[in-house]
C-alpha cells in the first residue's frame, strides 16, 4: 500500500444466506483514477459499490480511505470523503432540482445550520457544470430521465468529496448524455478526484476509463488498463459470450463484436479466402460465426479486408500496399490454398498487384468463385485476368455463386456438403 492510495479494499467478501455475492475482492485506487467496474448482470458490481461505501456492511474484509478504515469514520465524516450516486432514487415528494442538489451539502453543515449562500453557490456551480442550471426550480419528478441523472450527478459533486462512487449513472440516458457523464467524470478525475463507476457499456468504459475491473460471479476476473481487460478471453469467461475485440479503424477506439458460435463444429474445416479491396468482410464474418478455421491471402496492408482479418485474428498473408505480390508470399499463398478444404475466390478487381491471387486459385482442391459482376468488367490487366478466370471455371468441382448465395450457404451450414456433393458430381 503506497501513500498515493486514496482507497484500498482488502479481501472484501459479502455472503448472504451462504451465497457468496462477493469473494475476496482486493484492489487499491490512487488519486485521479477513473475506474470502471464492469461485468455481467449479477456479477456483484452494485453490491461491491455499496459494500465499499458501507451502505451494505461487508461480511469480511476491510475498506480503507487514506489508510483509515471506514469503520472509524462517522456517517458524516464518511460523506465528506465519498459521494455515492445510486442507481435509482425515488423521490416521493416534489422537491426542486436545487433542493436535491443542496442535499449534497448536508455533511458540511452543522445540525442546526441552514444552507448558507456559499452552499447555494456551490450547488449552482455544479448544476451549471452538468448543464442543468436552468432546471433549478423544476420538480425532480417532472424532468426527463437524462436531466434527473445529471441533477443527481450534480448533487454528488456538490458533496465536494475526493472520491465518487457512481452506480450506473448512464442508465436511461441517450447516447449523447451517456458520453457526457463519462466526459464529466474524466474531467473531474483530471482535477484530482477519484471515480469508481459501475458501467454497463463496455465501449464507453474502454473509451473513457483509465482502468477497468472486470467482475464475474463475485470475483475480480481481471483488473488493469482497458486494453488488457477487454480481451475476448476475459469477456468470454465473464459474459459467456463469444466476442471479438478489435480496434475500430474509424473511431480509433476499442470495439467489440459479439456473435453466437454456431452449433455445428466446423473447426476441422479449413477455408481459405482470396480477397482484398473490401470484398470479403461479410464472408469472413459469416464464416467466423460458423466456426470455420480460416486463412486468407493475399490481402494488401491497409485494405479493409486486412483489418477484418486482423480483428478476427485470422491466419492471413499480407502484401505491401500497392505492390505486386512477392514470389515468397505468392508461394505461401499457394501452399495454404492447396492445404485448404475449401477455397473462396472473391469478386475481385484484378490489377498487376493482385493478378497472382487469381493464378494461385488454380491450386485449390475445392474452389468456390464469387461472381457478382462479369469478369470482363473487373479486368485491369488487358484481358489476362479474363483468360485465367475462364480457364479456372472449366476446372472440375468449381462452382460459381453470387455473394448472397454464398452467405446463405454458409449460414445454412452447407459449405462442406457442397464441396462433397460437387466432387461426387464431377466424379460421375
Amino acid at each position: 500500500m503506497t501513500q498515493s492510495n486514496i482507497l484500498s479494499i482488502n479481501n472484501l467478501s459479502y455472503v448472504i444466506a451462504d451465497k457468496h455475492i462477493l469473494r475476496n475482492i482486493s484492489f487499491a485506487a490512487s488519486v485521479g483514477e477513473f475506474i470502471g467496474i464492469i461485468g455481467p448482470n449479477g456479477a456483484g458490481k452494485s453490491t461491491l459499490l455499496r459494500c465499499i461505501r458501507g451502505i451494505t456492511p461487508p461480511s469480511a474484509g476491510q475498506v480503507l480511505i487514506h489508510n483509515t478504515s471506514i469503520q472509524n469514520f462517522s456517517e458524516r465524516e464518511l460523506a465528506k470523503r465519498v459521494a455515492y450516486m445510486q442507481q435509482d432514487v425515488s423521490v416521493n415528494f416534489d422537491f426542486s432540482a436545487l433542493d436535491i442538489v443542496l442535499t449534497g451539502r448536508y455533511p458540511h453543515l452543522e445540525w442546526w445550520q441552514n444552507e448558507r449562500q456559499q452552499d447555494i453557490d456551490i450547488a449552482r456551480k455544479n448544476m451549471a457544470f452538468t448543464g442543468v442550471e436552468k432546471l433549478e426550480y423544476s420538480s425532480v419528478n417532472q424532468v426527463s430521465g437524462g436531466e434527473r441523472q445529471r441533477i443527481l450527478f450534480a448533487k454528488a459533486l456538490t458533496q465536494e468529496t475526493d472520491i465518487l462512487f457512481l452506480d450506473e449513472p448512464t442508465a436511461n440516458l441517450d447516447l449523447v448524455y451517456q458520453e457526457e457523464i463519462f466526459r464529466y467524470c474524466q474531467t473531474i478525475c483530471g482535477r484530482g478526484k477519484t471515480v469508481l463507476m459501475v458501467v454497463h457499456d463496455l465501449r464507453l468504459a474502454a473509451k473513457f476509463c483509465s482502468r477497468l475491473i472486470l467482475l464475474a460471479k463475485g470475483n475480480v476476473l481481471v483488473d488493469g488498463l482497458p486494453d488488457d481487460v477487454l480481451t475476448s478471453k476475459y469477456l468470454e469467461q465473464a459474459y459467456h459470450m463469444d466476442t471479438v475485440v478489435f480496434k475500430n479503424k474509424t473511431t480509433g477506439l476499442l470495439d467489440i463484436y459479439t456473435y453466437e458460435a454456431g452449433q455445428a463444429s466446423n473447426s476441422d474445416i479449413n477455408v481459405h479466402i482470396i480477397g482484398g479491396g473490401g470484398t470479403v468482410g461479410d464472408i469472413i464474418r459469416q464464416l467466423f460465426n460458423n466456426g470455420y478455421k480460416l486463412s486468407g491471402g493475399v490481402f494488401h496492408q491497409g485494405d479493409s479486408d486486412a483489418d477484418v482479418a486482423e480483428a478476427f485474428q485470422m491466419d492471413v498473408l499480407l502484401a505491401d500496399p500497392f505492390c505486386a505480390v512477392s514470389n515468397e508470399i505468392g508461394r505461401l499463398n499457394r501452399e495454404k490454398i492447396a492445404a485448404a478444404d475449401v477455397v473462396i475466390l472473391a469478386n475481385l478487381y484484378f490489377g498487376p498487384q493482385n493478378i497472382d491471387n487469381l493464378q494461385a486459385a488454380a491450386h485449390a482442391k475445392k474452389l468456390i468463385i464469387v461472381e457478382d459482376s462479369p469478369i470482363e468488367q473487373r479486368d485491369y490487366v488487358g484481358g489476362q485476368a479474363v483468360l485465367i478466370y475462364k480457364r479456372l471455371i472449366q476446372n472440375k468441382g468449381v462452382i460459381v455463386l453470387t455473394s448472397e448465395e454464398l452467405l446463405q450457404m454458409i449460414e445454412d451450414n452447407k459449405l462442406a456438403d457442397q464441396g462433397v456433393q460437387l466432387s461426387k458430381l464431377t466424379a460421375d
Partner: protein
Amino acid sequence: MKSSNYRVRYLLPVMIIILVLLSIIATSWGQVGVPLANTMEIIFKHWGIPGYADITLNPQQDAVIYFIRLPRVIVGILVGAGLAVAGAVMQGIFSNPLADPGIIGVSSGAAFGAITAISLGLTTSNLFTMPFFAAGGSLLAVLLTVMLASHKGRIPVIILLLAGIAVSMFMGALSSGLLTILNEHRVREYLFWMVGGLDYRRWEHVYLAAGPILSGIGICCLLARHMNILVLGDNEARAVGASVQKMRIGILSVASVITAFAVCVSGAIGFVGLVVPHIMRIFVGPDHRLLIPVSALAGGIFLVACDVLARMIVPSIEIRVGVITALVGAPYFLYLLRRVQRSEK
C-alpha cells in the same frame, strides 16, 4: 425552496390572521349567542388587558365564553396543530404521503395507553400519568407498525398502511375490552377515545397539552432540514452522511409524544395529519422547514373549522369533531391512495 419564498412571505401572516379571526368567531358563535364585541371584552378582561378591567360582564356570557368555548377553541388549535405536524413528520420519515398518526396506529396506541392509566386508577394521583401512559402506548404502536411493515430496511407504502390498520384494530380491541371491564355503560367514554372530540374541554386540558405540543412542534421545526434528507430514503440519506436510524427514531418519538398529548385531551381525532400536510405541500412545496410551521397553523384552522361545523350542522346536538374530520379525511385518503397506486405503476 427559493421559488416558494414569495408565496410563503404572505402565506404565514395570512394564516395567522385567519386563525385568529376564526378563533374569535368560533368562540362567540353557538347556542348562546354572544356578540363579537362582548366576546372580545370578556377575553380581554380575563387577560388583564388595560382598559377592560372595569367592564361588568354578563355572568352567563362570561361563563360560556371564557370557561367553555375559549378553552375548547384553544385545545382545538393545539390538537389540530399537533396532529398536522405529527402527520407531516411521519410522512417525511416514512417517505410516504399516506402516513398519519391515525392511520399507522399511533393514535389508537395513545388511546389504549390513556385508558390503561384510567383503568389502573392512576389518573387522579398525577396530572401527567395519563399522558405518560398515552405516550408509551403510541410509541409501542409505532414500533409494532414499523416492525410489521419493514422488510430489508424498506417500508412499502401499502404494507405500512396495512400494518397500521392491523395495529390500530388491535389497539382498538384492547381499548374496548378494557372499557367494557371498566364500565359497560360508559358509551360516551368509549366514543371519546375512539372518535375524538373537543366537547367539555377546560383550561386544565389547555395547560396539560400546551407545553408538550408546542415544544414538540418547536423541536420538529428545528429538525426540519434533517427530515428533508430522510424523505429521500435510507440509502440516499446515508450517502450524504445522515444517521438515519437514530434520527428516524428520535423524530418519530417526538411525533408520537405530540400525538399522545393530543389524544389525551381530545381522543383520537383522525385524518388531520393526513389532509393538512398534503394540502400545504401543494402550497409551499415539500421543504419541511416551511411545511411544518405552515401545517401547524393550517392544522389549527382546520380543526377549529371542523368543530364549528360540528356544532353548526344540528344545533341541538353536537356532532363530535372526529366524525367531521373522518367525513372530510376518508375520501381524501382514498383519493391519495389512488394517486399513489397510479404513480407506482
